Each structure stands twice: as C-alpha cells, then as structure tokens.
C-alpha cells in the first residue's frame, strides 16, 4: 500500500476536532487505495470523466503578444478552458467521485470566489449527489454569477454571516457542518489546505496540470521551461502547476500572492490588507494544518484582503509553505492595481479574459519581472504561466474596481452604464 503524505517538513498534520478524525482516517484510507493505488479502477474512471466531462487535456498556448512584450517566450496553460471555467474541477470531480466510491451520500464544500463551489456543484450534479455549499456573505455579493450557477446546478447555497464573510469563515462553517454529519457526508475541500490527507490529495488531483504542461512544452518547444508561474490563494492551482516540475531544479517556480492594497499590516484592527501568507505570514495552525498564516502577535487569525475573492485567505497550503522555506518556490506579490492592469492586458492583447486570481500571475510578468519590476527577478527564455480560470465571474467586480482606479489600460466603460 502506498503511503500518503501527512506532513511536509514541519508543516501539515491533522489539527481537527476529534469528531472528524475517524472520517479523516477513512478518507486517508480511501485516498491511498483509490487514488494512489487505483483500486477498482478509480483513477481510470477519474481520468475518463475529467477528459469527457471536464475537457482535458487543456491546451498549452503560446501567447504571441506577451512574448513580444516581454522578449521571452510566454506559454499559457489554459485551465480557464476546463468545464466550469477554472482548474477547480480537477479536484472537485476527483473528490466527489471518491465520495461516491466511499459510499457517502452527501457533499458539502466551502467556496470563496465561488469557483470551487461551482465546480463542486457541477461535479455533484454530474455524479448525482446532493450538495450544499457554504459561502461568506461578502463573497456572495462579490461573485453573484457563481451563486446563480451553483443554485442552477441544483446545489444549496448557505450564506455565512459570521466575521467578514469570506473564505476563512466559510471553511470554518463547513467544518462545523462536517462535524455534525460526518458519517454520511464528504467535505470537498477546495484547495491544498486543511488536515492531511487533503493537501496531498488535492495536489494529486491538480497535478494533471503540470503533467500535461510538461509533456506539451516538450512537444511544442522541447525540453523544460525556464520558469513556471501560478497565482496562490490556498495554492491548489499552484501546486498542480508545480508538482511535476519540483524535481527539476533548473525550473524556477514563482507563486504569486495577492499583495492587496499594501503589504503592511494593521495589528490593531486585525486586518492584513493583503493575502500574502507565504511572503509575510508566520507559522501557525489553522483549519487543520500547520502552515504559514496571517496572524497577529497573539495568534489570532487576521482578516486578509484582496480584490480577488479566490485569493482572499489568511492561510496557504502546507506543502507550499514548506517549498518556500526550502527555497524551491519563490513567493512574490502583485497588488490589486497591478492585478487589474494585468487583467485588462491579457484581455486586450491575448483575447483571454482571466479570473482576477489568475490576473495576479500575469501581473508578475509586468510588475515583478517585467518593465515595472525592480530587477530582482529576471525572466528566463521561456515561461509557463497557469491561466487558472476565466473572468466571467469577475465582470461586475472588475468594472467597479476599475472605475475606482486610474489604470492606464482600462477600456472606457460608458457602454456598461448607458441605456440599461
């Protein structure tokens, strides 16, 4: 039997209420048997469904205009083309299918940007499982199209009113549901966070991204890319994009976090106006795992902030925290303004409207490594950037946020406000 990964250096573990431990042991067992050992052909069925239902493989595309702009060959891994519009389905479909193999009867999940909730609702509908999604009230208001989508897919959407009403609160609330219903219910966690075996399992489901990208790059260009870039909220698209490159020491790995409005922190208010847990967080325990966190000096978790709901989280996956400490992954930050500019740039120059989360990864090309950078990072000859999702869910937010700012490349918006 294969061994599932419990910790990553000092990070990871299983810091959960006792009531959940048996479920987590059951899940660990199922993960090892079905996912790692392909018992009952689980992985075969998963691969077939993620292909036919999900639309894999997604392309690796040369970005013509960006390549010219940065004088480097930029390749895009197009997870935005996955069913549901983001990489999230890789994991959601895997877990819902696993829950089915485990004989569970009900699916719950938390969601921030609504992408994971949408992916889970779609997977649950596809596999005929009842599904409930917890979502912070603030995120509900920021990402309404995704709320609509979950409802239309037949999922219940439960607003979470506690705290600031974002992802952190939604996770806590889903854990409470799970603690009550653990015998019949599987909690589909949405990123490489939470107690073991979630971080390793979610990474494994997402690692198809880098598995494909590695092969595609070799076929289309030859060899390995010089650098691989992905945004990092919880870090699932990040780990998925990095997983098959971590052993290739010549490939630089950049995890782009949300710099929010500023990296400095307001202890008094308990608010970090960013979500840069890899860059400025400290070790601690949250939501079942030891990892890097945005917390105050007492250990209270701070509210994070980002213009993009999907990055708006105070923690980060433990494996990513470990790889940063090891020096294997370089964390960088891109702030709200830079992300919005990158959003418009990719939309106008490449004809791809990215999710706001994803836009951060492209902000890196411009604002860290590119013309606006401080020279600390130099781009190698070839770069693969993960397009973790599409921006349909963000249209309203982008219009509103763009309106507030003075961005060089924003389109005029009258047509949005005229004659409605």
């Amino acid at each position, binding site marked *: 039997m294969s061994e599932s990964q419990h910790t990553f250096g000092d990070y990871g573990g299983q810091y959960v209420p*006792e009531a959940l*431990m*048996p*479920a987590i042991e059951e899940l660990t067992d199922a993960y090892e048997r079905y996912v790692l050992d392909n018992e009952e052909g689980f992985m075969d069925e998963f691969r077939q469904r993620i292909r036919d239902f999900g639309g894999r493989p997604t392309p690796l595309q040369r970005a013509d205009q960006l390549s010219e702009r940065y004088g480097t060959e930029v390749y895009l891994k197009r997870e935005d083309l996955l069913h549901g519009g983001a990489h999230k389905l890789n994991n959601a479909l895997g877990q819902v299918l696993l829950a089915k193999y485990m004989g569970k009867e009900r699916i719950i999940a938390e969601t921030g940007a609504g992408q994971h909730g949408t992916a889970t609702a779609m997977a649950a509908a596809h596999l005929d499982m009842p599904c409930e999604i917890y979502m912070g009230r603030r995120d509900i208001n920021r990402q309404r199209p995704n709320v609509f989508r979950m409802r239309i897919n037949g999922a219940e959407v439960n607003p979470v009113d*506690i705290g600031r009403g974002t992802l952190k609160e939604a996770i806590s609330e889903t854990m409470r549901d799970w603690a009550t*219903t653990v015998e019949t219910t599987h909690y589909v966690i949405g990123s490489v966070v939470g107690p073991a075996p979630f971080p390793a399992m979610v990474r494994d489901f997402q690692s198809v991204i880098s598995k494909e990208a590695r092969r595609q790059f070799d076929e289309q260009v030859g060899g390995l890319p010089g650098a691989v870039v992905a945004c990092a909220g919880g870090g699932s698209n990040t780990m998925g994009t990095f997983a098959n490159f971590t052993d290739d020491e010549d490939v630089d790995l950049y995890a782009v976090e949300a710099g929010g409005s500023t990296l400095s922190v307001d202890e008094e208010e308990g608010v970090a106006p960013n979500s840069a847990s890899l860059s400025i967080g400290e070790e601690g325990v*949250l939501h079942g795992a030891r990892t890097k966190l945005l917390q105050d000096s*007492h*250990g209270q978790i701070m509210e994070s902030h980002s213009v993009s709901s999907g990055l708006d989280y105070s923690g980060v996956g433990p494996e990513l925290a470990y790889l940063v400490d090891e020096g294997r992954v370089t964390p960088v930050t891109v702030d709200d303004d830079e992300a919005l500019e990158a959003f418009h740039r990719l939309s106008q120059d490449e004809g791809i409207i990215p999710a706001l989360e994803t836009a951060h990864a492209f902000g890196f090309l411009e604002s860290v490594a590119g013309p606006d950078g401080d020279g600390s990072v130099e781009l190698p000859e070839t770069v693969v950037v993960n397009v973790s999702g599409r921006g349909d869910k963000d249209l309203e937010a982008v219009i509103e946020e763009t309106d507030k700012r003075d961005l060089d490349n924003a389109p005029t918006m009258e047509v949005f406000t005229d004659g409605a």
Partner: protein
Amino acid sequence: MGLEDAFDEPAFVPYLAAGDPDFESSLEYVEALARGGADIIELGLPFSEPIAEGPTIQQAVVRSLEGGMTPERFFEFVEALDVDVPLVCMTYYNLIYQYGSEGEPPVRPFVERAAEVGIDGFVVPDLPAEEAGPLRDACDEFGLDLVFIVAPTTRGERLQRMMEQVSGYVYVQARLGVTGARADVSNQTEESLARLAEYDVPKAVGFGISSGEQAADVVAAGADGVIVGSALVDIVADGAENDLPTAEVADRLESLARELKQGAVDGAQRRPRPEGT
C-alpha cells in the same frame, strides 16, 4: 492538583468564555458558577476561528475578543479570579503555539505561564491525540492535566491512543456536531459511555446539556460529571444584549448552576445498583 479528585461525587463542569462580555463582569459570572456548585470550571480563551463551536459560543468569542481579550489578559483574568475550584483552559492550538518570545520553543511557554496563574489543565478541541505530543510533554513538566474529547465516532485504535495520553477526565461528546444547547440527550451518550467503561478515568459528558433533568439523565446513564456551556453562555448573551445589571446575570447563572449540580447529584441516585450489593 489532579482534576480527577473533583469527580468523587457527580461533578458539574460549567464553561464560560473568559472576558465575555467584559473583564469585570466575566469575573463575577465565573465566581457565581463556583457559588452555584461548580466542581471544575472550563474557561474559554477565545480564538478567532472557533471551528468546534456553534453559534452561541461563536458569539461569546466575538464579544470577548471585542472586549480586548488576549492570552496575556486571560492569564491576568485567572489571577484575578477568586474561586476555590480547579480551572481548565479551553482554547485552540494556535494560541498555545504562538505564545512566548521569539526563539523559545513553542507550547512550553504557554503551559508554564498557565501553571503559574493556577490553571490545572487544558482542553484543546482542534488537537487530536495524534498531534498532542508537545503539549502532553509540557503538561507533564508542569504537572497539568490534558483532557481529550471522545466523539461518538471515536473507536478502537484511536480511542486507545487517546486514553494513553488523557489525564484529569475525558470529555465525552454527547453527539456529533458543534456546541450548543439542545432539548434532548442523544442516545449516542450511552454507547460512548459503554465504550469507555473499561477505562479508569472520570467521564464528563458535554454538548447540548441545558437543564437539571438532562444532567440527571446523563449521570444516571453512567457519566461521572456533566459539562455545560451554551446554556450558561445564553444567560450571559441575554445580559449583554439587554444591558442587564451584572448582579442579576450572576444570580441567574448561580441558580442554573445549582439546578445542574443538583441534577447531577440526583442522577447518581437513579443509577442501577451494582449487582450483588
């Protein structure tokens, strides 16, 4: 020293969040519980992400944090308390982990300071036995107990592992889910107590108990004590919302405490006599 001693007769173990809704009132509330007959008091040190708590205690946490509660304030609170009852600190692992100065190994400073102010043990809802090594070690060093929660789902090997580490008492979770007062007592309780019968450690049942009658039922079913949180926190919440005088709230707490303690004692009478006596 030794929380076990508190279970010589059926014990009443109330919970309140320290500093809810403010430092001074909270001191009086805790003292009222002692007057009402508490055998042990669980004092909550509020954490921003109380994943094991239902809405009642979540709100208590918010009130206490807004009142300025911090780990250091918590220790001052314990020092300021005038009660003659063993005290258990109930908190989440990150607060224990973060305490202390840069460079110190984590966990130990928190336990040391707790011992100093007179804490007798810990309950840490997000710390299963598997991750509890460092805290267990520090408790041993400073002579504190470490209470674990046994859930209805805890069985076999896991139960074994927990029982090897537990001290003071086990917290028997009466039902799946999160904290919160409920009208009925789950039949999961009896099953859990049966599973624990072979272990020689006091069993205190909690999660959902709100009346003397429920307390009696639980003790009659074989529990060595009852843990009551949300039902008491409801009284504090009501006082905070309606701006009631502290003394009035304290009186209500004391009288519910009395009822619960009495229930526990009564319950012991209803226990089936051991055969042959």
